[in-house]
Every structure is written in C-alpha cells, then in structure tokens.
C-alpha cells in the first residue's frame, strides 16, 4: 500500500511552515544592519538608508509577502522616516504626471469594458477571421495584441479569457491534453504580452519608467516616439510568436463549427451597437489621436483626464462603474515606485550602485543596453514588471550618466523588456490565467516561453543597435 509518512527533519518542517514569518524577520534584521553600519566610501548616510529601503522593497516585490501597493506604502513611510527625502518632497512626488496618466488610462479602459465595446469588437473579429482552426488561433493572438495597444493588457486578458474558455468547451478540447487548447490559451497570453509593450497604454510600466526618467533627469519620451521605437520589436515578436506557437502546438482538431456557433450566439445576444458603445469608441479614438499628435504639446495626463471628464459629461459612465473597474491601489503602487526611484537618485545611491555593479561589467553603451535588457528580462519573469521598472530605472539612469549616454536609451532598454515575460505564470496575470484554465500547464508555458524570452532579447538588441540610430536614438 503506497502510504507515505513524513520523515523530514523537524527543522525543515518548521522552515516550510514558517517561511513567511522567517523571511519578514530576516528582512527586518538585514534592514536594521544596513542602517546601523557606517556608509562605504563615496556613499552618503542618506544614500545608504535609501539602499536599505531599496533592498527591503525589492525583496518584498519579488517574494510578494505583502501586496505590491502595500510595499509602495512602506517605501513612502520609510523614505522620510530615515531622512532620505523630506516629507514634503516625498508626498509631492505623487503629483507626477505619470501617476495621473496611468489613472486616466485605466479609467478609460474601464469605460471600454463597461460599455461592452471591447467584447463586441473581440467577438466580431474572431467571428470574421476565425473561420478555420489556424485562423481562429491567429485571430485570438492578433486580437489580444491589437487590443492591448489601446487598453491595459491585463484588462484585455480578463475580457477575452471567458470567450476563449467557451470556445475550448464548445470544441470539447481536453484540458492539459489538447494541443489546440494549449495553442488558444498561450496565443491569448502572448498576444497580450507582445501587444502590451507597443504603446503607453498596454500597462502602467512605460508611463512609470517615463515618470522616473522625468523625476531624475530633464528628459522625457512622448507617446509617438515610444511607439516608433518599439514598433519593430512588436512586429518581429508577433511574427516569431506565431511561428513558435504553430511549431510547438500543431493543430490537432479538424472543424471548428461549434466555436463559430458560440461566437454567432454571442453576437446575436449582444444586439445592436448601443449609443454608449459608439460614444465610448469615438472618445477613445479621439483620445488616442490626441496622445499621438498633441501629447508633446498638451501632456499625456491632461489628455487622459480631459477624456475621463468627457465620459462623465455625456453620462457614459457613473462613478460607481469606475470604482468597480479600477483598483485604486494603482496610485499608491506607482506613486510609491516614483518616490523610491527619486530617493535613490537624489541621495546619490543610484549612481553608487551603478558604479559598484553594472559599470564593472559593461565597457560600451551597447553593452549597457544588452546588460540592462537582459537583467530586465530575467527579473520580469520572477516579479511584477512595474516593480522591475522601479528597481532598475534609478540604477539605469545613474549608469547612463557614467557613460555619457542619453538616459532615454536606458529607459527604453528597461521599459520595453519589462513587459516581455513569457515563461512563468507568476510573472504576469495573462500567463497566470492561461495556466488557471488547466489547458496549459507550467511546463508547456516555460518550454515555449524560454524560446520567446531568448528571442526577444536578441531582437530587442538588434533593433536597438541598427534601427534606433535611424530614428535619432544614437548611443
């Protein structure tokens, strides 16, 4: 009889059960130790304290021992408490344009979801282009990518997942066994991931990176310039992603009539396009154009907030809807991340860390880009991509100063790869949801994701080396 008795040593059992408490305690001790010692040469006491806070936040962001936004609150408390910045300076950083742009963009995304416009567009496109098994998988992949150009990739994943689940159910795909099931769910996740890096709107990480760039230097990146810089990466990764998926998960079903029926029923159930859908679509379109062409003159946050007000003027959303569709923790998370970045920069800690670490390994600006993009790609697999930005941006800006590089280059070398987490469910909600369906297991995702991660690093560096100089980003 296969009865198993737990014969592991007591210390190991205690360790397994009490890991969380032990980690928190170790972190507190480490923090206390760093604060207590004398600062090394070239680092001010405030800089040393900033590094101690940085280590605590980094560890908490990686381990998720407390929610991300709460870690940011901790940074907000510790920065003035340990004399890195004054209270006034700390709280004033919440007034950063990036925080308000992110807030506006999330409210707009909430309005798109609330109106039903997103679901209608998605269903119509899948119905129109998903006539065959490969066509349906391709349309889910590209649809997820294109929608993530306009609204947060997480919102897109949340919106499309129930539809893909219904399709898989209608096609009677076997969870964990069907290749086509794996293909559909990984297409959804990868579409969101690749599309999410294409503009400022795919996630809050790019605005956050730009916010930190603005706070720590006199430079910035506008909506159009960013999209232009990242365009080849998106196009190449979508192409590579499509071929990798087709190769690793060859279609193992024949007809998809049942899926077409599901989509047709869904469309019929939606009825005619409503006034709300038309109006939200028009406002979203105009906002997008304004970000592209007037972003530099008016400011991205101003445009986003003006669009939010317009939604309310035309009674397209109620405040209650917004409360349901936006998680207000976002303000604390991104505000706190900007405070931490600014604390590291202003105390001189960022420059000191850059001198002590990457500066020893990198000899040329090209190597700086290669190393930062590699570090970002590795870190983003294990922690939230916004946290990766908060952690690497201050060091990156410090590093660009040492090499006389334009800090915009390093910002892009961190902000773009930070979104490209393909391999693990813990790295991004889109991956987590694909695995939660049980159609995809962690092994399938990791096997395919590693190929994509390596490819994305190579593609990113080739684009940076050969394409960026053409559009004026020289290094």
């Amino acid at each position, binding site marked *: *009889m296969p009865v198993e008795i737990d014969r592991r040593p007591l210390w190991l059992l205690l360790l*397994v059960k009490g890991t969380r408490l032990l980690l928190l305690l170790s972190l507190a001790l480490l923090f206390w130790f760093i604060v207590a010692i004398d600062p090394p040469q070239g680092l001010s006491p405030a800089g040393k304290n900033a590094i101690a806070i940085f280590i605590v936040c980094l560890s908490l962001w990686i381990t998720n021992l407390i929610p*991300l936004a709460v870690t940011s609150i901790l940074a907000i408390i510790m920065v003035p408490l340990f004399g890195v910045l004054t209270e006034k300076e700390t709280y004033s950083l919440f007034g950063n344009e990036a925080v308000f742009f992110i807030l506006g963009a999330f409210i707009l*995304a*909430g309005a798109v979801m609330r109106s039903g416009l997103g679901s209608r567009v998605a269903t119509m496109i899948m119905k129109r282009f998903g006539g065959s098994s490969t066509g349906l998988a391709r349309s889910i992949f590209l649809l997820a990518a294109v929608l993530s150009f306009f609204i947060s990739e997480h919102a897109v994943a949340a919106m499309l997942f129930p539809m893909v689940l219904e399709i898989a159910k209608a096609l009677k795909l076997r969870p964990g066994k069907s290749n086509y099931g794996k293909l559909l769910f990984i297409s959804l996740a990868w579409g969101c991931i690749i599309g999410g890096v294409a503009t400022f709107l795919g996630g*809050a990480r790019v605005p956050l990176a730009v916010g930190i760039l603005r706070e720590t230097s006199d430079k910035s990146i506008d909506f159009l310039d960013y999209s232009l810089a990242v365009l080849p990466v998106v196009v190449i990764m979508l192409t590579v992603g499509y071929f990798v998926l087709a190769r690793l998960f060859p279609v193992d079903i024949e007809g998809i009539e049942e899926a077409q029926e599901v989509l047709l029923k869904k469309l019929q159930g939606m009825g005619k396009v409503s006034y709300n859908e038309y109006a939200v679509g028009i406002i979203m379109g105009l906002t997008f154009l304004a970000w592209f062409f007037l972003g530099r003159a008016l400011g991205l946050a101003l445009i986003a907030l003006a669009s939010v007000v317009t939604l309310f003027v035309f009674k397209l959303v109620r405040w209650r809807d917004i409360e349901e569709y936006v998680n207000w*923790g976002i303000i604390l998370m991104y505000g706190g991340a900007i405070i931490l970045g600014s604390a590291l920069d202003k105390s001189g800690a960022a420059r000191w860390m850059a001198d002590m670490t990457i500066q020893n390994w990198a000899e040329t600006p090209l190597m700086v880009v290669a190393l930062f993009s590699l570090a970002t790609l590795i870190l983003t697999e294990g922690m939230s991509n916004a946290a990766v930005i908060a952690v690497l941006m201050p060091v990156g800006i410090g590093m660009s100063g040492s090499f006389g590089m334009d800090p915009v280059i390093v910002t892009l070398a961190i902000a773009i790869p930070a979104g490209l987490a393909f391999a693990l469910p813990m790295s991004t*909600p889109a991956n987590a949801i694909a695995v*939660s369906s049980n159609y995809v297991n962690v092994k399938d995702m990791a096997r395919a994701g590693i190929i994509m991660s390596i490819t994305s690093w190579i593609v990113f560096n080739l684009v940076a080396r050969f394409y960026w100089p053409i559009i004026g980003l020289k290094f």
Partner: protein
Amino acid sequence: MKDILLILPTSKTSNEAVDFAIRKAKEIGGALTVLYILDTAMADEVFDKFTDIGFIGDKPSSQLTEAIMKEYRQRGYELLGAVQIKAMEAGVPFNPITLHGDFTECAMKVINDIKPVMAVTVRERLSGLSRYFSTSSINELQDSAPCEVVFFDED
C-alpha cells in the same frame, strides 16, 4: 454501510485511482462516495494577480474568477458522471458530493461525516526534490484522517 471515499481534486485526475476505488468498494461490498473538491485557491490566486499586479477593478476580476469556477464546476460534474457510469457498470452504489474550499478541510469534513473504511485520492506529479521541499496536502490528510489514505499520481 461501509464506504470507500474517492477524493478528486479540481485539476488532477487518475483513472488508476478511480478503478482502484471502485474495485475496493466492490471487494468490501460497500458504496463508493466520490468527493469532488472545487479548490478555490487557484481562482483566488488569479483574482489577486489581476487586482494586485494588474490593478484592474474588483468587477472584472470577480467575473474572471467566476468564469474559472464555472469551468471547474462543469468539469467536476463531467468527472462525477464518468465515475458514476464506471461504478454502475461494476454494480457499486454511488454517492457524489461536491464541496468548495481547501482540499484538506473539505476531505476531513467528509471523512468525519461518513467515516469511510479507506480514502483514495490523487496527488500532483512532482520531482523528488520539489516534493521534499513542499508541504503536501496528502501528508496532512494522512496525519489527520482516522482511516487509511491511499493516493495515486495524477495521469
């Protein structure tokens, strides 16, 4: 009546475990009680990911977890149906139960209620090293259950 309890977790199945439980129930002339546990942990984790990392609001996150739970529930019904057919073919009385919640808590609740002769369940396939460092709910069940607990690796 003597019962054999077959405990089926949400995302793991084993034909071997099902066949073994039916065979055992037939041998002792008892009934087969099948407990399908709708593990809310996975759906909760997705909810947390979308709200804590994705920062999307409660409503879409809840809709998402509802979609996942609906899918798990449907799979549970299908699984229970398939086991029922096998049990009927073997002439074994069949009693299905579905519960939401933590694996060990749900399993213990039913074990204490029906006091089965034996509990049969399915465990995740893991490498030896991962198994050594992870806490297994099967171990917890074996420690707390008053009956014998037999497990099979998932298919």
